[in-house]
Each structure stands twice: as structure tokens, then as C-alpha cells.
């Protein structure tokens, strides 16, 4: 469902951005870490969209790779 996909992606981004933004958890989420998390999410979505768009444009149709894409 839509809600499950939303939560799944939030789990994945939280895990990835936690690695990037959280060195030692402190008594509160400081503004530097919060900015890092927001940037991290934005960049992750930018990256996903860039990859999706580029894949659609290139359509390297002869490789084993693209066969797997068309499953």
C-alpha cells in the first residue's frame, strides 16, 4: 500500500542519513544535525529522480542489464 511504501522509504532514508549525520547522539537533535537530515533527504530524492530520468532516457536496450529492467 501507499502508506507502507512511504514508511519503508522513511526507514531506509533514516538509516542512511543516520550514518551520515549522527556521530554521537547528544541530549537533543541540534540544528546542525537537523539541517543535515533535511539536506540528506532532499539529496536522496534528487538522486533517485535523476537516476530514474536518466534510465528512461538512455534505455540501453541490448544488454542483459536492461533485460532485467523489463521484468
Amino acid at each position, binding site marked *: 500500500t501507499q502508506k507502507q511504501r512511504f514508511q519503508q522509504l522513511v526507514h531506509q532514508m533514516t*538509516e542512511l542519513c543516520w550514518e551520515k549525520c549522527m556521530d554521537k547522539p547528544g541530549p537533543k537533535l541540534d540544528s546542525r544535525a537537523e539541517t543535515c537530515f533535511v539536506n540528506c533527504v532532499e539529496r536522496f530524492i534528487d538522486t533517485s529522480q535523476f537516476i530514474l530520468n536518466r534510465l528512461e532516457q538512455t534505455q540501453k536496450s541490448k544488454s542483459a542489464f536492461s533485460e532485467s529492467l523489463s521484468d
Partner: protein
Amino acid sequence: AQELLQRMTDKCFRKCIGKPGGALDNSEQVRTGGRSGDPRVCSLGLPLRLCVPQKCIAMCMDRYMDSWNTVSRAYNSRLQ
């Protein structure tokens, strides 16, 4: 909820217990006797579940929840 709990436990265990790649250090070897079924002793006389570094885990939990909420809001606002 199950998945969140698993991820949080994994992350906070890694952050708060022992050192990556090394043995658990002395301050974390206070719990003994667990395998023989003996009553377990905690050096500080606390109940069993309090033998972990509580402050570190509690902060880690709160920060993980903050992070989850921040990511969730940022993703939501991006979707609109």
C-alpha cells in the same frame, strides 16, 4: 513498528555497547553467570535490564525518533 524497533535496537547497540571490531571493554563485562542459569549479578546492584548504559541508549532512542520524524516531515513536504 517491528521494523523500526529492530533498526533502533541495532543502531543503539552499535553506538552504545562496546567498540566496533573489538571486544567489549571491562566496564561492560559486569554481567556474568548468564549461561549457567545462576542468578545474574550486576555490579551496581541494579535490576537486570538496567545493567546497560541507560543514558546512552535513552539518548540514542530519542535521537533516532527525532531523526525518523525529521526525515518523515522532509519527505512529506517534498511530496507536496
